[in-house]
Each structure stands twice: as C-alpha cells, then as structure tokens.
C-alpha cells in the first residue's frame, strides 16, 4: 500500500528539511520538516525518499512507512552484503501506523510513532517520537511508551494488546552490534541491497543520485518479496519457495541479534542470517545455552520435521513474556510466519538428521 505522495510541497513547515544530526533532537518532529501527515495523507518533503523492503520486520502488524534523507549532494554507496554505506548526515525515518480495521487497511490510519535513525559525526543515534492524539505532530519521547492499542484484524476479530514504542536505549537492543568481543557500534538494519532490490527501486535511487556503485541488477541478490506469501496459500508454494521465504523472514526478524556479530548470537551460537549454511548454527539438533522458559520444555532449537518440538517455532508461536522471541518489539503472534517457519522445519526432514532422544518424525 502506498499512501504517500511524491509531491514536493511547500507544506512541510513551509521550507526545506532542517536537520542537524549532531545537535539536540527537536522536541517536535515537525520542526525537522521531513514530512507532513494530514487527513491520512503522508507527504514527504523535497529530498526525502520513501522506500520499501522486500521482507520487513514484523511489528505487531503495524503498517510501516520508511524514508531516507541524504544530505544535499551525497549518496549512499552500494555494498553487496550488509547495510549500504550511508554518509554522515543521513536520516532514516520509519513511521508506525495502525488502521482501525485491517479489512480496510488503508482507511482510518493513525500514526503511533516515528523513529529516526540519524548518522551523526560520532555514529548513529536513534530517537523515538510519539504522535499526539490529535495526529497533528509527534513529540520526542526518550522514554518511549507502552500503549494499549486495539484493532479489528483481517478476520474481523477484535485484537487488543500492549504495543511498545521503544525507549531510546531500547533502540540499541536491535541496532547495536558487536565490533570485536568487547566493542559495540550502532548501525541501521533495513537498507541492504537484498532487501531494497525490488522493482525499479535501486535503479531509481541511482538515477536520482541517492546511490553510487550499483552493479548490474542481475548481479544484485534479492530477499523474497513478502507479498508473495503473506496473503498466499502456502500449500501452493514449492518447498524451495518456502525455504527461501522462511530464511529471509528469520534473517530480518532475528539476525540483528542471532548472527555471528550479534551478542545473543555469540552467546547462543544460533545464527539465523540468511547466508548461514551450517545446520547446527541455524538450530538443527542444537541445545539452547540459556533459554530458560523459552525452551517450552523442548530440547533443541530446531528438530527437523517437527516444528511442534522445535524451540525456535515455540518461541514464535507463544506470546508469553519471558518465553517469546524476538526479545523486544512483539506482543502478538505472526500466525502466517509461524506457519511458514513450521513448513520450513518440516522440509528440513530432508537433511536426514535425527536429534538424540527425539521421537522419530511421523
């Protein structure tokens, strides 16, 4: 769904974007003039480019609108792996919205929060902005918020839950990676070549001067477009399609921690980055290190052919605090993804591995 308008209006506070990535963040989001939000219409200012990801992070079904602002005359530099090199001065903007009723997801959208990730001279800094009830502007809220939200889901059922607007410090739970054993750095997660490579998005970035060094598109990998499975009949997908979609889902939703450069990945030795090909490290017959109640009473992260007895699957299908994963930012169960990951685990039966002490798979 595209609710934004690519029109350069003089509407945004009546002037160009006004960002100082090294200064104190303003109290009100509107002071930055990044975009306008009026009557359910999102209008980005000149120089602010909206973008979409192939496989986005699941955030309790929130509708997310992403955009990037690059300083005048500067461009991102292409990298095949990881996030593009984004120059100092870059601002990544992510807004989280909910409709009243997901049967009409474009209608009655309300802005809940907008998160900014700003590339200052000393590195990236994250700021949460919380939207006013009147939807006129958002205010800097370093402490974030735990909000009681409700909506009608796609099946027409009422859903009520606690939605986390992360504290500034909690942004680092996902965005701070290890660099060396005792070192840390804050980095963006979404804008990778694989996840941005959809339609003509990358060539448009290159054409508009936002991206330098883009190779021929045929050489650029791409993550699975979530639209191909999120509303699809998974029965109609081949095992190969399931596997690739599942690995990309795990990559986006888990690998910011569960990778060889993530603290939790190192501690648990569970690496869910899409390009990890070692079955033990993506959980096959691997016992958890310190999962506590997160085991659900099961023994292994992944039991090939048996999602029900796989801890990874259990931690996705539960909504118990203390047991579920990810560690932060989810209150509701992503049922469709649970189904997808379940089918991936069923397909791992093909590895021909039997975990010690597990009942034979039916």
């Amino acid at each position, binding site marked *: 769904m595209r609710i934004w308008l690519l029109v350069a209006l003089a509407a945004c506070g009546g002037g160009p974007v006004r960002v100082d990535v090294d200064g104190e963040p303003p109290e009100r989001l509107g002071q930055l003039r990044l975009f306008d939000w009026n009557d359910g219409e999102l209008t980005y200012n000149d120089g602010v480019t909206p973008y979409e990801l192939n496989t986005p992070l699941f955030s309790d079904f929130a509708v997310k609108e992403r955009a990037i602002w690059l300083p005048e005359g500067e461009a991102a530099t292409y990298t095949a792996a990881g996030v593009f090199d984004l120059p100092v001065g870059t601002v990544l903007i992510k807004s989280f919205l909910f409709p009243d009723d997901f049967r009409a997801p474009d209608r009655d959208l309300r802005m809940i929060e907008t998160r900014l990730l700003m590339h200052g001279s000393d590195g990236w800094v994250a700021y949460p902005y919380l939207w006013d009830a009147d939807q006129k502007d958002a205010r800097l809220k*370093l*402490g*974030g918020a*735990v909000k009681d939200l409700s909506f009608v889901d796609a099946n027409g059922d009422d859903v009520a839950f*606690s*939605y*986390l607007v992360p*504290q*500034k*410090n*909690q942004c*680092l*739970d996902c965005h*701070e990676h*290890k660099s060396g*054993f*005792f070192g*840390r750095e*804050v980095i963006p997660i979404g804008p990778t070549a694989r996840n941005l490579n959809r339609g003509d998005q990358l060539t448009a970035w290159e054409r508009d001067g936002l991206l330098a060094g883009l190779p021929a598109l045929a050489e650029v990998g791409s993550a699975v477009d979530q639209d191909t499975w999120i509303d699809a009949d998974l029965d109609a997908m081949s095992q190969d399609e399931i596997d690739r979609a599942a690995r990309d889902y795990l990559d986006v939703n888990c690998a910011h921690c569960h990778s060889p450069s993530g*603290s939790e990945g*190192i*501690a648990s*030795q569970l690496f869910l980055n899409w390009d990890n090909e070692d079955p033990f490290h993506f959980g096959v017959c691997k*016992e*958890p*290190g*310190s*999962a*506590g*109640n997160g*085991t*659900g*009473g*099961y*023994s292994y992260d992944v039991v090939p052919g048996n999602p029900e007895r796989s801890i990874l699957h259990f931690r996705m299908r539960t909504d*118990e*605090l*203390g047991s*579920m994963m*990810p*560690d*932060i*930012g*989810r*209150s509701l169960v992503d049922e469709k993804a649970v189904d997808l990951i379940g089918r991936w685990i069923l397909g791992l039966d093909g590895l021909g591995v039997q975990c010690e*002490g597990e009942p034979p798979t039916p």
Partner: protein
Amino acid sequence: MHSNQMPTLAALSALALASACKREGFDDVSCRDLEAEDCVQVSADDPDGLIEALNGLAAGGAIVLGEGTFTMDNAVVIRGADGVTLIGQGMDATRLDFGGLKTQAPAGVDVIANDVRLEGFAVIDAPKDALRVEDSDGVVIRGIETTWSAGAATENGAYGIYPVKVSRVLLEDSVASYASDAGIYVGQCVNAVVRNNTASGNVAGLEIENTQFADVYGNTVTDNTGGLVVFDLPGNPVVGRDIWIHDNEVTDNNRANFAPGGTVRMIPAGTGTFSMASRRVIIEDNTYANNNTGDLAVLAGLVVQGDPEQWKLSKAELVGVVDGLDLEEDATGTSIYNWRTTDVVLRGNSHSGSGTAPDASLIDGAPGLGTLIALTWGDLAVDTVLYDAIGESAFDPVDPAGNSNDNRICIGADPGVTMASLDAENLSQAFPPTLDMVYRPAPPFAPFDCAGFGEVILPDLGDLDQTP
C-alpha cells in the same frame, strides 16, 4: 550592609536547596552523596520519570532511586552512556517490580555500559532475567537483590544477577533467590571478584561459566538444587581458567530441581560444587555441609555434551588469555578442545553430613548423574570428592598404580575427606553399577596426592575495587 547581607542570603538559599534535595525517600543516598555532575532523583511513585531519566542519561550521569516500590510496565535499560550510576536506598527499601511488565524485554534491568555502578535496589518478578549486564567493562554490582515473589517456581525468570561477557566485574553484598536457572551467573567474563553474596532457593546458586580469572569468596550458598559451580559450556570462545573458590559456605543445597529445561535441568538436587570442563581451579577452605548428593565433583564436559567435536574452538576465535593452558589441539593445530578438566586443587575444605541421600530421580525420563551415584552407593554415604576419570589413560578400581592422573587433579588429605574415582563412562554402562567398580583410595589418595599447579592468577580489577 549590603556586603554583609550577601553571605547570609547565600547560606539561606543553600539551606533551602539542601532541604529540597534531601527529599523524603532519599534518606540513605541522594544526589548530594554522589560525585556525578548530572544527577537525577526519582521517587518510587514516578516509574515513567525513571524511564525518562534513564534515556536522558549522559556519560558520567547518575540516577538515585527513592524509597518504595517502582511498579514498572517497561524494562529499565541502561545503554549508550558510560560511567553511569543507578543507586537506590538499599535492597530492602528500593524495589523495582517487573511483575506488571506489559511487553517482552530481555531483562528487568538491562545494562550495556562501561564503568557502570548498580547498587542498593531489588529487582522483583522479572519475566526473563532480573539484572543483566552484558558486553561491558568495569562493572560494580553491589547490594542488589533479585527475587521472584512466588518462591521457587518453574515459571520464574531464568537468571537473577547476570553479568555476561563483561570484563572487570565486582559483584558483592548481593542476594539472589528463586531463579529458575541460576541466582548469580557470572558468564563469559574476564576478571571477576564475587564476594559476600547470598544465593538461596535457586536451581543453581552461584555459577562461574566460561570465565577467566575469578576470585569467589565469602559467599553463602544454601538451599539451592546445586550450590556453587564452575564450568565451561561447549562452543564458547572464552575458555575458563584461574578460578579461586575459597571461604564460602555451601550448605543444604537439596532443593528439588525446578528448572524448565536447559543444561541446569541436569543438576541433581543435593549438589554442593562441581568443576566441569574447567582448568586451573582452586577450591579451598570452604565449608560444605548437608548436601545430600555430594559436596565436590570434578567432571569432564563430556558429561553434558558427549560429542568432543562440539567442544572444538578455532584458535582464531578464542577470547581472553589462553597462554600456558596447554589445551588439547586438533590434528591441524588450528583448533582446541576444552571439554577436559585439568589442574584442579581441592584442599582445606570442611565436610559434614553430605552424601547421605543422593538424588536418584530421572531427568525427563532418563537417568542422570545423580541416578548413577544413588545406584552405585546404595545406602552408603557418597564420598566427599567425586572424580569422573573421563580422559584418564588408566583406571583401576583397586591398584593405585593402575590409575593415571593425566588431568592433574589434586586432593588434599584433610580431615573428613574421602575420595572416589568413578570411571563414569564404564560405570554408566553397568547394570547394576557397584562400588566394586569405583576406585576409592585412602588418604593421601594417590595418584591424586599432588600439590597442584601453584597459585591462581588473581583477577585484575584496576581501580574498580576502590569504588565507594
């Protein structure tokens, strides 16, 4: 006249300020007691104010928590600022209650910051871990309590006080109870002093895991499933070494295992101390009493992970100091294995009343180490020191000369000490296992009558120890 008035006015306003700062609920410690330039006092009735203050913390800043219970709906997170202090009015007076947490969080109090001081408050009913400090250097944890109000329950959070991947940590005067995994868990740390703490009512009381250079003393570890344990887990790049466990009380650790799962689920009730897959460990001058399965065990890592290949670590990825460890190498010389337990010295410990009722229960339907011990010893009291003899080149149940001590396990012939070498691999295959199969030497326990490797290398905390 004018010049005379000035000091009087200044004094008056200083007095006014002082009374304002010394607000009710900050009797024990207030911002005036701290050197921090940037200091905020937060009252217990203002949990949102606490969250805001935490996220506004600048480097070197401090937050003083007032007396009372903070009812939290979100986690207390300290990240992105070094040199910070979070201090309360004492563990009995300032309570952070996470029982009403509304969204998932890795820990109640979740800290990644260098040179951080956490002191004088309690952390209650955290759904996952209570206090976790990760990836940090220079950490003081003092006078903290972590607990769960339901008492021992499988649904409780996993860890109480949990410094992990920390260099230089001082953990003292704290109390940890009712964790469904470990009360105090010092994991993958380099340079740790753990002293004068109490761990009770947990599955594991006090754990030192994959840690280098730790001085652990003056702790009271009682009423847990397992008491005070030292071990490496497979696949972790910090190879444990130089652990000094002394002058602790490890008593009455007989609580039924209530862990939901994980490695800790394998600990038999009645376990005092074990040293597993660890090296250069001295356990001396501790008091052991009434641990029903046994006081001390020296175990190879293969007891919990039987596949040696899972214990393989490439040299390139190792963290910390591995000089002088003489670790077993693979054929190419590029990797090491750390399942073996070597250079362990046990001496000067006192023992009484232990080993009288080993925990024979099955773990998820399968016999465990406790089951093996119970079957083997039957009605006899279990020896105070058990050695699994895994990795030894020679074993004989009768002839001292038929036993190797390749792993250099040294056991002092102190009063009350008895010793048994199990040859656990073979014993666990026997039906039934019997004491005839066990080597039970009389003092001086040859060939385990060695003096040991010398002294442990003590942790270097730098100036951390001097923190007021």
